[in-house]
């Protein structure tokens, strides 16, 4: 093999690997929110990506239309989606807590279509963006966008915050505990209805943070949820539903497949490879990468 070619190839490979890691951070953030909801409340928010879509519009309107500064607009966006998570639990999930899982899936699936239609009517089908062009960081022959770097760092910060909350506070400890044994918690004096509301708000806040990070990089339109909703569900299922660590690992596995697959052809092929990998894994390890719960 020609030495010069190897050198060039290596740089692109490294760039793709690093971009994969950057993408993995944001995917892991989304997977964490979904896992949190499933682990604690035992329901899957099919409309999770649509909450993110609403959040993206929220930031777009606050920042680009109303001209609020980013330091104010971003927390407002996170708070908005946290409130949406609360409402989703209060209005849709709570009445169906004891219903069959299929009914819960259909109900949150209904919310998905509701939010898409709502966004279409309210915001139109145009693609919109914040109009921010962040510079590109060049290291040697490698190029990394600041938006991705920023998104990765913020995602990591968000996950560290959740980790500290889950391990250092009693509310967080209770959330971890209720994921292990639902019945015993109420007999220790825990009001599970309140804990579910806290968890829903937390899951919503994570979706809100993801919305802020995604709208930095991508245009928002009513169907934008379809482009990252399915991948988030695959990650969560591959990691083992409700398994936080598994979801984290699976995020980076998928991100690298997408990024490295995209290196050898189009980015779209990266997604095709990721889906194919998912189907294969469902045959090989249907219980998820890491086994769930002891």
């Amino acid at each position, binding site marked *: 093999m020609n030495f010069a070619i190897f050198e060039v190839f290596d740089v692109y490979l490294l760039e793709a690997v690093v971009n994969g890691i950057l993408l993995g951070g944001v995917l892991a953030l989304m997977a964490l929110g979904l896992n949190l909801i499933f682990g604690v409340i035992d329901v899957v928010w099919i409309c999770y990506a649509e909450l993110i879509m609403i959040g993206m519009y929220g930031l777009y309107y606050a920042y680009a239309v109303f001209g609020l500064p980013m330091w104010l607009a971003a927390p407002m966006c996170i708070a908005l989606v946290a409130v949406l998570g609360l409402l989703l639990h209060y209005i849709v999930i709570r009445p169906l807590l004891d219903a069959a899982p299929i009914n819960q899936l259909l109900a949150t699936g209904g919310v998905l279509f509701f939010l898409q239609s709502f966004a279409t009517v309210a915001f139109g089908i145009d693609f919109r963006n914040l109009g921010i062009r962040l510079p590109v960081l060049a290291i040697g022959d490698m190029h990394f966008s600041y938006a991705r770097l920023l998104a990765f760092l913020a995602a990591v910060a968000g996950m560290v915050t959740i980790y500290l909350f889950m391990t250092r506070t*009693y509310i967080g400890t*209770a959330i971890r505990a209720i994921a292990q044994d639902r019945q015993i918690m109420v007999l220790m004096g825990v009001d599970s209805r309140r804990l579910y509301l806290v968890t829903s708000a937390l899951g919503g806040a994570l979706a809100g943070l993801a919305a802020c990070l995604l709208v930095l990089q991508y245009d928002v339109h009513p169907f934008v949820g379809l482009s990252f909703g399915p991948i988030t569900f695959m990650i969560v299922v591959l990691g083992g539903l409700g398994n936080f660590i598994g979801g984290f690992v699976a995020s980076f596995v998928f991100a690298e497949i997408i990024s490295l697959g995209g290196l050898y052809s189009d980015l779209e092929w990266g997604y095709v490879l990721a889906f194919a990998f998912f189907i294969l894994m469902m045959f090989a390890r249907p219980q998820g990468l890491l086994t769930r719960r*002891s």
Partner: protein
Amino acid sequence: MLLVKGLVKRFGGFAAVNNVSFEVARGEILGLIGPNGSGKSTIFNVLSGTYRPTAGSIVFDGHEIAGLAPHQIINRGIGRTFQIPRPFRRLSLFDNVALAGYYGQGRHSRAKAQASAERALAVVGLPIDPKAKVGGLGAAGLKKLELAKALATEPKLLLADESLGGLDEHEMSRAAEMLRRIRDEMGITIIWVEHIMGVLMRVVDRVIVLDHGEKIAEGSPGAVANNPKVIEVYLGTEVPALHKLAAASHAEGAPS
């Protein structure tokens, strides 16, 4: 302190508890005995709010608590242990107990939760080390953990559910001694459910005997042990007792 009147709990057509009334005085250790399926655990589940009573009233400290949610009952000062220990294995030993202390007392205070957890662990004789894990505990250790969790909720009344099952003779008498100490030193009133009579009879002040969901005897351990009705249904010859056990566990299989 606790006044139970006309308590009924039905599962479909089966009356697991049928018109049971009793009273518990402050500072007392009351034994609740009866063969398997006699309704002891169902009474506990109704008292702790897991089951809603079909009929009857439960007055605790002057307030009606029948039908309240489990967390409300615990926050009013009724703690309980479980026949089968159910710790959170992914949490540390200390966190298991502190979590009960945090939520069980109604006011969510970190400092109080930790103080209660330390005290409870000391009382039952488990390590207060924050790094200690649940994994290494044997049957006796898990029972102690259950007790520590219940104590950390700072109860006025402790419902101890067959705390001695799965223990050997020596561990049993030590556990019984521990319950007496909890009453004497912490001033906690105790209702103790048990099907092994021996050790219980040495510690309790008063005994209630249940059979088929009904109260058939009540009184001092000595009087109850000599009650012909009790001897018939509970201490009777082994063959009928076994029949009864099989029938009862069949009948109460679903709810318990």
